[in-house]
């Protein structure tokens, strides 16, 4: 029963990770930018949601605010930080450092504004109920699962059926060919950043409802998203989603075997296993050499 309980918690965390990782993977696949500041988007979205609630808004409005802030932030970072660096022919490490700088700066601004403590919301949804003897599930679990599935369906539809979505996939496959067809890679990369960042907003809201949020949660989300992207296989959004779920479950189950200190390391133990055995990841096409 303990394992089942941990598994349920793991799925809940995993759904959240999958949302964040899908955005990270989309951005990395389409633009080749290792978007460390994705974690900053997460924290910003979460605190915008809380600020909306604090102003007495309806929670749906607050979610919309979080979506808007996340999308805008992603687009602005691409336009005003990454693009200028890439224009000066900065290498990937230059972009990585700048991105990390954004994450650190945003986290400290949040800390100065809202303090360092954990923020969470309590509602009838977040109180656990006993489903089976010894198995406690809060109704929010079903909300999380449903919302994640809905997000992925919408996401899949955009990438699979709409013109910009197809163009995005083309961008990750072959940027030169895309340009020769007269599509703008610049505008598409902004779209990738917008879409990928928008996915973080529901993740952040769910994070507040399940585990809580603090200024430094961004670092954790960044670590998980980047690990999930590699485990899933670079360039595969589907892989990142599966890997996100896998990492959430691994993190939760590890608690049953060793102590909680290992939960953060669990994701990386899975990652090392993949790097050793199958560096191309779950759904990867190109081998990382």
């Amino acid at each position, binding site marked *: 029963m303990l394992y089942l309980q941990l598994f349920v918690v793991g799925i809940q965390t995993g759904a959240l990770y999958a949302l964040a990782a899908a955005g990270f993977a989309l951005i990395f696949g389409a633009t080749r930018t290792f978007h460390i500041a994705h974690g900053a988007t997460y924290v910003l979205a979460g605190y915008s949601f809380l600020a909306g609630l604090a102003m007495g808004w309806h929670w749906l409005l607050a979610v919309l605010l979080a979506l808007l802030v996340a999308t805008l932030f992603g687009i602005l970072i691409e336009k005003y930080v990454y693009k200028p*660096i890439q224009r000066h022919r900065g290498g990937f490490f230059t972009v990585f450092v700048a991105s*990390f700088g954004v994450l650190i700066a945003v*986290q400290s601004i949040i800390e100065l504004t809202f303090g360092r403590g954990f923020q969470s919301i309590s509602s009838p949804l977040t109180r656990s109920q006993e489903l089976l003897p010894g198995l406690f599930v809060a109704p929010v679990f079903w909300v999380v699962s449903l919302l994640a599935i809905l997000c992925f369906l919408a996401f899949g539809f955009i990438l699979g059926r709409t013109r910009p979505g197809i163009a995005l996939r083309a961008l990750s496959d072959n940027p030169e060919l895309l340009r020769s067809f007269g599509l703008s890679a610049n505008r598409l990369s902004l779209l990738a950043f917008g879409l990928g960042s928008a996915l973080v907003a529901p993740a952040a809201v769910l994070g507040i409802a399940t585990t809580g949020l603090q200024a*430094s949660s961004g670092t954790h989300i960044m670590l998980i998203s980047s690990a999930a992207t590699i485990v899933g296989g670079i360039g595969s959004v589907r892989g990142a989603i599966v890997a996100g779920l896998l990492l959430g479950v691994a993190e939760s189950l590890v608690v049953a075997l060793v102590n909680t200190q290992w939960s953060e390391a669990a994701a990386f133990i899975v*990652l090392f296993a993949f790097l050793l055995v199958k560096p191309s990841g779950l759904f990867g096409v190109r081998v990382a050499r």
Partner: protein
Amino acid sequence: MVGGRGIHRAVRLSPRETQRAFRCEGCAVIPYLVNLATLIAIFGILASSMNVLLGYGGIFSVAHATFMGLGAYAAAQIALLITPDLLLACLAAVIVTSVFSVCLALPSLRVRNEYFIVASLGLQMVAVAVFTDAHAITGGMGGLVGIPQAELFGIPVGGGFAFLIVCLAILVLNLLIVFVLMRGSFGRSLMAMRDNESAAQALGKNIPMLKTFATLLGCSMAGIAGALFAFYLQFVNVESFTIQQSILIVAMVVIGGIGTFSGPLVGAVLLLLLPSALSFIPGLPAEDIGAVQQLIYGLLMVLLMMFRPSGIAGRH
């Protein structure tokens, strides 16, 4: 709470370090400056050894605090169990970090760029879990307390000024090693590998050997810095060796000037003077100093990468 978030701390020195380095209530100015200079010397070693990996070798590790920690724990155990001799402690630190540097060298041979960064982040995360869990060796969360003052050939050198001289001497020695090696054929091969791995390989450079040796060099120097750090605080715990510390060391190198000789030193001085400079600002609450410090160096990282990627000491 499931999903432990034990190491989500902001990038800041642990309370004890802050006390030793930046709180100066009722003490004279001189010991305060000596303390600060000692810390700068230790971090100068860390930053310049990080630069061997990042700047000269193109090995983008974000796990330097892991090796600093390994060195610190090794030295602390030697001092607690056998003798507080500084040379022996440093030797132990070098041996331990050299052995474990394989953990970094292996992924660097297998995977590139982003993959390697994530692998090193992972190494850092796993290391923190091990440091926290292995009570017998590291004392777990509580850490190792009561590390005796350092001695050199039986002469105690743990006191403020004497220890500063020792740290500076080791810093100079470390800089000398880097300077000589990077001027020689090893350094040139290393930089060739950094600039174009395939071309270097085609010219017959032994890439695995270069990467392994560069990693060994950088990590063992970090281990020595860790040993000095343990004697400096006379206390070590896992909080000094988290990912935040790793990022701080990377930031020192990058802000100072990656791949330059003096850059890491400039960065170390700058980022360590920052909190003490901030503590003189009237009206800034003490608990906010850490966050303001982070904000400044986060912004520095972004702005420098945008407008001057070569760093402060780098050629424009």
